[in-house]
């Protein structure tokens, strides 16, 4: 039987995969994709809680699903702006490797 705990653990594993991607990879595009994985892991646990908190009307908690809707909107806007910054960076430096973009470092 599938319980709330299964969904929470799967969501936690997806978050850990995204986190490892941000830490391990040097390609900025893949780092942005890993950020998307982490945002979606949070969405999965939110929706699982929404289904778990059945209201007195016998329906899931729709407040949580509205919150997930907002998160998806903000994530889409974030990807658009992030990729535009990436294109501007590529035009200036001809690289998207984070190891080559260390001008602020001493």
């Amino acid at each position, binding site marked *: *039987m*599938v*319980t*709330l*705990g*299964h*969904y*929470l*653990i*799967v969501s*936690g*594993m*997806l978050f*850990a*995969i*995204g*986190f*490892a991607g941000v*830490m*391990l*990879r040097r*390609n900025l*595009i*893949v780092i942005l*994709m*890993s950020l*998307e*994985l982490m945002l*979606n892991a949070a*969405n*999965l646990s939110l*929706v699982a809680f*929404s*289904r*778990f908190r*059945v209201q007195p*009307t016998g*329906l*899931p908690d*729709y*407040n949580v*699903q*509205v919150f997930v*809707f907002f998160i*998806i*909107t*903000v994530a*889409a*806007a974030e*990807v*658009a*702006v992030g*990729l*535009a910054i*990436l*294109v*501007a960076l*590529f*035009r200036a430096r001809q690289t*998207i490797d984070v190891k080559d973009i260390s001008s602020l470092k001493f």
Partner: protein
Amino acid sequence: MSPVLFWTFALLMLVFGVAVIVNRNPVASALSLVVSFLGLAALFMSLDAYFIGIIQVLVYAGAVMVLFLFIIMLLDLRAEARRQINWLASAGAIAVALALVLQIFYVVGHFKSAGRPFPPLARSTTDDVRNIGALLFSNYNLPFQIIGVLVLVATIGVVLLSRREPR
């Protein structure tokens, strides 16, 4: 949802999630991300959140993925050159991620409600678009307007950022 379907889609999502960060070629990463998000959308639908599942497919597998692939093609990125791997940093990153997973196992194991099955619904929720929409335009009207402004600002910002400097 039957456990077989749950584990099928959860494994699909996790395996292709790992493929995203393991692949050297950014195009392969982006396509793995699509499959991973399709598995996630199936999990949303297994939780009776049909609207969220559908906008997950529309927004991520549709819009965001086209954006990623378009940028990869625009920049003409090749597969990453094989570089000297910093083993210490890699081991540290994997250790922190594993510690996070272990912590989540511990917390969920001690969380009483986590072992209980999902309570049954009074009826099918295939009309959840109406319910979410009613909530969005009554209780969450102000946040909805603010999100609209945010998307407008993001659009203007993207156009400004990607414009070439006039000489």
